[in-house]
């Protein structure tokens, strides 16, 4: 100890000795947890900018195709159908929503790794590998839907360069897709650790971070689905 320990031994210090190890955090929360919330805050502004731009540009395209209306001659030389396919996207939205559920179960499984599991049901619920795989696969399925969606739009004559709708639509949903991709890679990295040495309660915070991110990306999709697809 340094010399300045005149006050040592008074009641103020009895709780812990902070020369060794790290002092506890001010809020009791893990640092990473606060950082991810700050990160999510900035992501909100990112998507807010993208979504607002999409909405501002919604009716400004000077050539078709358009999101909700067919483009007929003379506006378009050949008739172009409305682009957005709501039934298919509803399916992919459902898939993404389910992935959030799987994520919740994955986190719970990691947190309860150490508890004994008696029934088959408990063993299934307690398998972090199962639920992490499930989340990642559902996420990948969503991406599959998106890939299908993008290619069919291109076939129907809508690319990044076609018009304002194409530019802002592909950029917005592409950004979201990129976020899902990062999420899937994150989940796969967690799985790799799980296979290597097993994820336990002490890893819960790291799984929790991935979960927060995943749910956030999911919520953003709900907003996009509502504002871009459902509202005409």
């Amino acid at each position: 100890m340094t010399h300045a320990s005149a006050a040592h031994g008074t009641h103020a210090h009895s709780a812990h000795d902070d020369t060794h190890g790290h002092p506890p955090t001010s809020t009791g929360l893990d640092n990473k947890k606060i950082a991810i919330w700050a990160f999510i805050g900035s992501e909100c502004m990112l998507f807010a900018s993208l979504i607002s731009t999409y909405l501002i540009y919604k009716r400004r395209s000077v050539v078709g195709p358009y999101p909700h209306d067919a483009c007929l001659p003379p506006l378009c030389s050949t008739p172009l159908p409305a682009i957005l396919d709501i039934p298919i996207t509803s399916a992919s939205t459902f898939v993404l929503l389910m992935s959030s559920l799987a994520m919740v179960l994955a986190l719970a499984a990691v947190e309860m790794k150490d508890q004994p599991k008696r029934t088959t049901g408990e063993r299934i619920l307690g398998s972090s590998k199962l639920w992490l795989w499930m989340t990642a696969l559902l996420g990948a399925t969503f991406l599959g839907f998106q890939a299908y969606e993008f290619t069919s739009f291109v076939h129907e004559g809508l690319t990044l360069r076609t018009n304002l709708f194409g530019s802002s639509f592909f950029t917005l949903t592409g950004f979201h897709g990129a976020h899902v991709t990062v999420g899937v890679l994150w989940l796969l990295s967690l799985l790799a650790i799980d296979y290597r040495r097993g994820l336990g309660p002490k890893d819960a915070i790291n799984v929790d971070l991935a979960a927060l991110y995943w749910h956030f990306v999911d919520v953003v999709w709900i907003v996009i689905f509502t504002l871009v697809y459902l509202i005409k």
Partner: protein
Amino acid sequence: MATTATAPVYAPAERYVGESGVWSWLTTVDHKRIGTLYLFTSLFFFVVGGLEAGLIRAQLSGPNKHLVSAEMYNQLFTMHGTTMIFLAIMPLSAAFFNYLIPLQIGARDVAFPRLNAFSYWVYLLGALFMNSSWLINAAPNGGWFGYAPLTTYQFSPGLNIDFWVIGLQILGVSSLAAAFNFITTIINMRAPGMNLMRMPMFTWNAFVVQFLLVLAFPVITIALVFLQFDRFFGTTFYAIGAGADPLLWQHLFWIFGHPEVYILILPAFGLVSEIIPTFSRKPIFGYPVMVYATMLIAFLGFGVWAHHMFSVGMGPIADTVFGVTTMLIAIPTGVKIFNWIFTMWGGSVQFTTAMKFAIALVGLFTIGGISGVMHSSPPADLQQTDTYFIVAHFHYVLFGGSMMGIFGGIYYYFPKMTGRMMNEKLGTWHFWLTFVGMNVTFFPMHYAGLMGMPRRIYTYDSGQGWELFNKMSTYGTVLLIIGTAVFLWNFFRSHSIGAVAGNDPWKASTLEWSIPSPPPEYNFARIPRVTSRVPLWDITSPRLASEVPHTKRGDKRLDVDVASKHVGHAYPNPIGNQPKQAAEAGLHIEHATGRTAKDLGIPMPNPTIKPLICALGMTIMFSGLLFIHKDNMSLALITIIGGALVMTMALYAWLLTPLEDAH
């Protein structure tokens, strides 16, 4: 009184000597060394930006001069503005954030030391990337706010704008990463007793700035992404022919841009809020009001962006709303000015160099604030916008405000950072040269502007009444250059031969002065217990501390709870024997011992090169975009994918290595 008995005794300069050598700097994760790196780098870019300004003023010193071409002039003013804002003032602030935040809140480092190193390297590489454009004669030339559609491929086909867009994108990553880090640090790593309402004013200002960064930077990121996509992939975001809104960029840019001006000024406000109380020997006047005013400024700062767009014809309603919100924001700003004045009022003011700069900020910023309120009125602004009047306004707030505050901060904190004092005599020269130089340079611009001189013209005809004002501005710039030279001379000279400072040369009130100068790698051998918002004065100058609230006996609110575990309370403290009581509560002064973290058993993060490699990979990845415009797709792909691979691998290696050795 017990005052004299407990005055701190300084140990002879048994200084803590850290590692040295280039490798130790490349791999450092110590917030103090990263702060030092920021300081040196940003001072370098301050000089670069200053030289660009010198050329601009030489060109404008008289009518019809042809020292530089019109194109070169465009590059000079664009790079001058971009450099000063993104490569000088913001990172100068970051230098102080890094160095001071952990010290002021009683922490041993920031929350994520390696992320911190990453932020610095990204900043450095982004700055070098953007400036490398000079080498191929293609420096950015679209103004610091890069208005699209002017900056789209159709109107700016050169690489100039590419360097600007990509460079800003890289720099944004640096600022955002740093902001997450500091937010976490301030929320979560305060010493016991350091309640939010006891944090030093600098930390408060820094805290608010991080929120501005987190909320404002994503918006410009998206604006830049659109521009990048338009330029590289042929999207139509800013293509008017395709129906794009010509104001989209302006809105997105200024939604970022106005909060950005508070990102630039609040750190300087914070520094001044440390300097003025110390040299007035009084706690800051109206601390809670200062805190709330800072928050209010930040909040309102998001609702005024369109005052930069009055001339585009938004219509009377939008003009009125944005005019009024802009006028409103002057209120919390004025509150701060008055609080500083009232802090000095009745204090025993010591005119050190740092204090001179601080007082100069109060006066000069007020002038800039007043011209700001003048153009918050749309009809007035229509006369002033895009003239030298605006140039005068923002130089009063940026030079008279931000830079004066930062200079003051450097004089004030130099002893803490280096263990040595800066020379006060040279400091006085620096101050007066800068003060006079700045007014001679920028005050005449008000007149030139009101007489109709537009900004961003590379030359002008004689006989319009602008000659005198321009000549004065150029002479003023000469004074500023001499002043800066004196400063640099003082800085480097004092670094090696300045008088030894000791812990607390200014008799200040905050925690960073309770530890040796320069601080050891672990900052605090024992984490302090904080007893009030002027913790050090509780020990060294109890009479000054008696006016600020302390914990009252039995007052549960200010008890020290850590992770909901009760670890004692900051000691109740009516006037009398604070020193003893503060010491009993666990506050203490630490003297230089030369002992290392290892000697004391304090866990410290290991140095690592991974953040630097990660930053390098990212910069390479971004710069690959340049080749798209050279129509060299294969090279572009190789660079982008190669950079991304380096970045990802370094990132994985970084995340899979524990921060510190197991203990």
